[in-house]
């Protein structure tokens, strides 16, 4: 089984890479891009095999690659592969509605990164896949010439690159802190405990992965880019793409030894994000922006759970949080497809609305949905104190936000940004049903049904929904009094500051021109000679 597992693990990256390689042969290119939705199948099989008989390891020293497929990775890889296959099939099967070539290549590269980042086991491979899931995603939406899309693309890229820079700095600290020169993630994280750069590295890691997850204050790019992104791409990015940040935190936080200060700080950021996402989200009118803020909020919950686990030194957290995130992959993907479906049909089948409501409330932990299982599984991480209250309150907030989302669905009109290929419109109920059912299949690997269906859990699940429903009634009455917060909220200040910085660029032109004059150049040369002479003689 281990041999088979390693083989499948290798294939789960090699097969998508082969599709990419085929793009360099003009005669194979279009076929490779049209059929790329089958490329995640080996990853799906590898994840299944790992759930049954994992974990698997794989080393490819020539490519400087080492991979590991353990339980958290298998959970996330399984559902992400499912989402990439489902959304990909819907997007690419129909010849007439297929994304154009450059967007299709970006799709493929992002997919490779999205699958690879879950299984990467050393710093350099992880960084490579992380860059792949972040940067090419720009091409999945940003080639549209409309100014709003261009703006969203620029902002997306700026945050992606900023996050990469934070991470690279953190990774350098991790690598240097490891005394034996190993670059494997478990080794460098184990060495982090005694490292002099522990707190700096943790802060940079949270900033880097937080930029991907949309943790406050690095959340502004998310609503902007989801609003601009076509439905199939938004489904995979909002579902699978952001989980690169989650797996990052799972892999790199030194869980298992209590770090109270850092853990509480992360939990604080997480809860702040969870509530911030709800508060700003309910002021949004665009359904995709509402989903984006719901993602912000959910990622906040995940960060809070990991923060609590870090503070408590809980070694079981990775699989539990991965299960929570896996549920979010499925639900968020299906909800984006719902936007496409509702926009495409003015006369909708009667079953669509209840399905959408169930799906939406799954994120708030509606009993008997996958979300209820996810909440039940992660409940121990929050303990029984103040954090548990906050977690329940955030569920109530989520219920309000998601009901607000459902209220936006009937008025959806078909536009470029909500356009969804016909197969995705027809089959979205199947995707939605899958999103509600698959967590049941995965639950036995991280918890038990008895726990999840205890009567107290049922009550735990129901009251936040009830509170959320009351809040949304209030919201409907107060809607006209609420401020209109632009999608991307704080990003407006960021842009202003950026433009102000850019306008100082003419100063550099003047400096350049000044050094071009001979007296200035001569003086510079002389100054360098004197400075070097001083330095060389100083200690002599």
């Amino acid at each position, binding site marked *: 089984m281990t041999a088979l597992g390693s083989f499948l693990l290798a294939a789960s990256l090699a097969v998508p890479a082969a599709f990419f390689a085929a793009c360099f042969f003009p005669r194979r290119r279009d076929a490779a891009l049209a059929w790329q939705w089958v490329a995640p199948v080996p990853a799906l099989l590898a994840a299944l095999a790992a759930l049954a008989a994992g974990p698997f390891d794989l080393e490819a020293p*020539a*490519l*400087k690659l080492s991979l590991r497929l353990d339980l958290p990775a298998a959970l996330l890889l399984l559902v992400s592969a499912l989402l990439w296959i489902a959304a990909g099939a819907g997007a690419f099967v129909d010849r007439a509605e297929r994304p*154009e070539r*450059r967007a299709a290549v970006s799709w493929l590269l992002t997919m490779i990164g999205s699958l690879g980042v879950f299984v990467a086991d050393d710093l*350099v491979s992880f*960084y*490579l896949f992380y*860059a792949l899931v972040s*940067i090419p995603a720009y*091409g999945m939406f*940003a*080639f549209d*010439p409309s100014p709003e899309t261009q703006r969203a*693309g*620029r902002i997306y*890229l700026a945050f992606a*690159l*900023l996050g*990469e*820079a934070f991470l*690279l*700095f953190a*990774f*350098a*600290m991790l*690598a*240097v802190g490891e005394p034996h020169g190993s670059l494997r993630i478990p080794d460098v994280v184990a060495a982090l405990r005694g490292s002099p*750069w522990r707190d700096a590295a943790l802060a940079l890691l949270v900033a880097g992965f937080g930029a991907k997850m949309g943790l406050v204050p690095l959340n502004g790019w998310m609503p902007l880019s989801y609003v601009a992104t076509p439905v199939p791409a938004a489904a995979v990015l909002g579902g699978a793409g952001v989980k690169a940040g989650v797996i990052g935190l799972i892999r790199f936080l030194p869980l298992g030894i209590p770090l109270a200060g850092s853990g509480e700080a992360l939990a604080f950021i997480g809860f702040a994000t969870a509530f911030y996402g709800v508060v700003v989200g309910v002021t949004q009118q665009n359904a995709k922006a509402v989903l984006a803020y719901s993602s912000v909020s959910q990622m906040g919950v995940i960060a809070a759970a990991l923060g609590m686990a870090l503070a408590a030194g809980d070694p079981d957290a990775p699989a539990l949080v991965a299960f929570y995130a896996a549920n979010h992959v499925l639900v968020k993907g299906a909800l984006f497809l719902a936007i496409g479906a509702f926009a495409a049909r003015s006369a909708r089948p009667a079953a669509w609305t209840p399905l959408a409501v169930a799906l939406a409330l799954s994120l708030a932990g509606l009993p008997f949905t996958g979300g209820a299982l996810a909440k039940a599984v992660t409940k121990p991480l929050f303990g029984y104190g103040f954090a548990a209250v906050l977690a329940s309150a955030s569920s109530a907030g989520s219920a309000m936000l998601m009901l607000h989302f459902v209220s936006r669905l009937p008025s959806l009109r078909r536009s470029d940004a909500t356009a969804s290929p016909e197969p995705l419109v027809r089959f979205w109920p199947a995707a939605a049903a899958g999103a509600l059912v698959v967590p049941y299949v995965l639950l036995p690997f991280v918890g038990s049904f008895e726990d999840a269906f205890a009567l107290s859990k049922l009550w735990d699940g129901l009251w936040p929904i009830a509170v959320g429903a009351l809040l949304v009634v209030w919201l409907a009455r107060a809607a006209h009094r609420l401020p209109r917060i632009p999608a991307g909220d704080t990003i407006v200040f960021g842009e202003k500051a950026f433009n102000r910085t850019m306008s100082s*660029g003419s100063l*550099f*032109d003047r*400096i*350049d021109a000044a*050094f*071009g004059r001979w007296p200035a*150049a001569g003086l*510079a*040369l002389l100054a*360098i*000679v*004197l*400075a*070097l*002479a*001083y*330095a*060389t*003689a*100083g*200690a*002599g």
Partner: protein
Amino acid sequence: MTPAETTTAGGALLVLAILLPAAGILASFALGGRNAEKIALGSAPLALLIALAILAEVWRSGRPIVYAIAGLSPPLGIALRADGISAAMLVTTALIIPAAGLYARAGFATPPEKRESRKALTFWIMLQAISAALAIVFVSGDLFNLYVALELLTFAAVPLACVEGRAETYAAALRYLLFALFGSIFYLLGCALLYGAFGTLDIALLAERMRPLPAVTAAAALMTAGLLAKTALFPLHIWLPPAHANAPAPASAVLSGLVVKGSFFLTVRLWFYVLPALPAAGFDAILGALGSAAVVFGSVLALRQARLKLLIAYSTIAQIGYLFLIFPLASGLHPWTVDGWNGGMMQVLAHAFAKAAMFLAAGLLYESLGHDKIAKFSGAARAMPMTFLTLGLGGLSLMGLPPSGGFAAKWLLLRASVASGQWFWALVLLAGGLLAAGYVYRILAPALSSHPVVLKAPPRRAGEAIALTLALVAVALGFAPESFFQLIAIGRPGLATAGLP
């Protein structure tokens, strides 16, 4: 005192590496006309073979190979010496020069109706002269000999910058020449001072005899400043953008990719091989600070250029800045200097290939669009996908994103700066990467839009293939195996102790 150095096995290869291009120059003069092109391109495989043979011999013996000219050991004679970095640079030169040459065949063929044209003859002879000069720079073990090589390099590079013969190229070349000459004078003055103090200019002997004398202080300052002017380190960079941006594309590729590395290589020789015994404190911080200023300044100006070639030229200024971080990050006897040294040298190679590829791609763009104004690139990537792929891959390395040589370099330099507690350089490296992403975005984003575009001429397939190959080498450097780093450590002074934790 160690026994006088004598010729080692394979030492004759070093002579061949210099003699081959030198003989090519003489033959080109004598035979003239079309033959210059044939000789320049025909000798290229041979030059590559010699470079590879030197590399193999250095690797096999695990120490520098030496040739004592006329059998006389220093201080009586002059020694040629090739260590790991010499070998790596010789191979790099032997790859980039022929790539530029093959690319240049279309633009620098002798017209069929003429027997000889000034432009073509100049180009092919000067290209070989650069080969010869760089070969001497990389294998010479004597500071005066290196002075001659530097002068040869300048006098080969300046004509290349103005080979087109347009008025603005003359102005740019003249400025280049003046800066380079000032640099040479400073360097020569320093040589004279060192000779006066120690009676030799052999690098190995100087290193042994080095003592802190006033003359040494003056010599080190003068020589370094001269070399910085030739390397275009901020704020002595001002000659580079017009010279590199107005030169024809294959010349720009060689000038930006290789020629500035010649004087940088010499700066490294000076501080790591001649002067390490000097109890100098702070010179490394000065060079690092100038490099950091260059990174920020060059990148910001690259962001502000309207023309692609000027953007790439300013990017060279920024990338040169990274090179100078090797002084604070690789000097002294600390364990982390291994990463600093490896990162600095990787940056030399990655930038050489990436920048050469990008200048060649810029030339193709100019030919096909009739301009190189970035604002008018809309939609061009659809018409010229290979060219923009080259720009993208080169840009990947400049930004330091994986997989690429630029990433490997940045990663190693970052590690060295973290390990040594020199945080500031880490911030410079990261900020430089973000700014580079900004200017690469400026090139690529409009080009990828679906705007319709009309080409004056389809891009030359051969030219595209050459540029793309160079960009792929820059990417492949990211996969450099451990043995590559073992190679460039051969002959590095102070390694015996620095390698130990």
